[in-house]
């Protein structure tokens, strides 16, 4: 399937909507203005996505993914490195006046943040496509990037079903700290065709 520039632009805009909302959500959560840089959008086959995520290296990567069904179907994931995760949770606990230990609450807190961000991303599309989406439960994974994204790369018996990955890496800065997060959506074949059709109608 050829993803020409015009179609790529349409798909990128869909992800941009989500990245913008994600920035807004993070801003509300941490109680500080978030400066959001223009995200880098990549569209590729799922099995080719890892080399494009150059900023997510090391063995402390966190991903929260959530399946969705509707006019489009697939899995959307928020992926961040452990440092960014710790920073967000620390600020979040400060914001809500919780004196608990960030380390013990980190996984649950990040799962909830991922849930909110993915719902913001896909929920915004329901307005674009005038069709509601249903969501699965959020799934937390931690390890290397390969560990975190393994279920979506077409190597675990799913080959051929989830074929395309659309990713947007965004750099947030909160006060003096830089946080790097990536939103990735793995679309099944039918959904990517629907997206291409919608993109063609936009031209």
């Amino acid at each position, binding site marked *: 399937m050829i993803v020409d520039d015009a179609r790529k632009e349409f798909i990128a805009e869909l992800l941009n909507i989500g990245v913008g909302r994600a920035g807004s*959500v993070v801003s*509300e*959560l941490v109680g500080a203005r978030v400066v959001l840089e223009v995200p880098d959008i990549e569209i590729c086959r799922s099995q080719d996505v890892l080399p494009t995520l150059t900023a997510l290296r090391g063995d402390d990567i966190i991903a929260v993914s959530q399946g969705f069904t509707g006019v489009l179907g697939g899995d959307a994931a928020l992926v961040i490195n452990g440092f960014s995760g710790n920073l967000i949770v620390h600020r979040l606990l400060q914001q*809500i*006046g*919780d004196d*608990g230990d960030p380390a013990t*609450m980190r996984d*649950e*807190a990040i*799962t*909830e943040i991922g*849930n*909110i961000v*993915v*719902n*913001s991303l896909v*929920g*915004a599309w*329901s*307005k674009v496509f005038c069709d*509601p*989406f249903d*969501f*699965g*439960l*959020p799934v937390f994974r931690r390890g290397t990037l390969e560990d975190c994204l393994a279920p979506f790369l077409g190597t675990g018996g799913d080959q051929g079903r989830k074929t395309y990955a659309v990713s947007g890496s965004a750099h947030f800065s909160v006060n003096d700290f830089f946080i790097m997060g990536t939103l990735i959506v793995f679309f099944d074949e039918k959904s990517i065709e629907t997206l291409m059709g919608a993109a063609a109608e936009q031209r």
Partner: protein
Amino acid sequence: MAKVLVIDDSGFQRRWITRTLTALGHETIEAVNGLEGLRVAGAERPDCITVDLNMPEMDGIAFLGNLKSGETPIPVIVITANIQDDTRKLCTELGAAAFLNKPFKPTELEQALSACLPAEDGGKP
């Protein structure tokens, strides 16, 4: 002040909501999904319930449907990450008293509670 049942599968979110409610002077009890929420609601008779939508075992939509068919109505505030208008409409049709999106502001929860509680429990006189 009121007794509020907080239903959410996320421990972090329950902690967040209960801290907010406690700061407002309310008593809280918790459940981790809709099924447990129905049991706790029946046993404890809370004055108000907050419920998440996307949960295992029984989700918030099924919870609202089951609670609606019960004997005594208890006001329910939906607190969810789901931002879709259709979802909000469905919850309203199922009898939800208020619908808040995560992340919620403490003042939003306070206003929602105030609107659905009697004056002696902290609601609007």
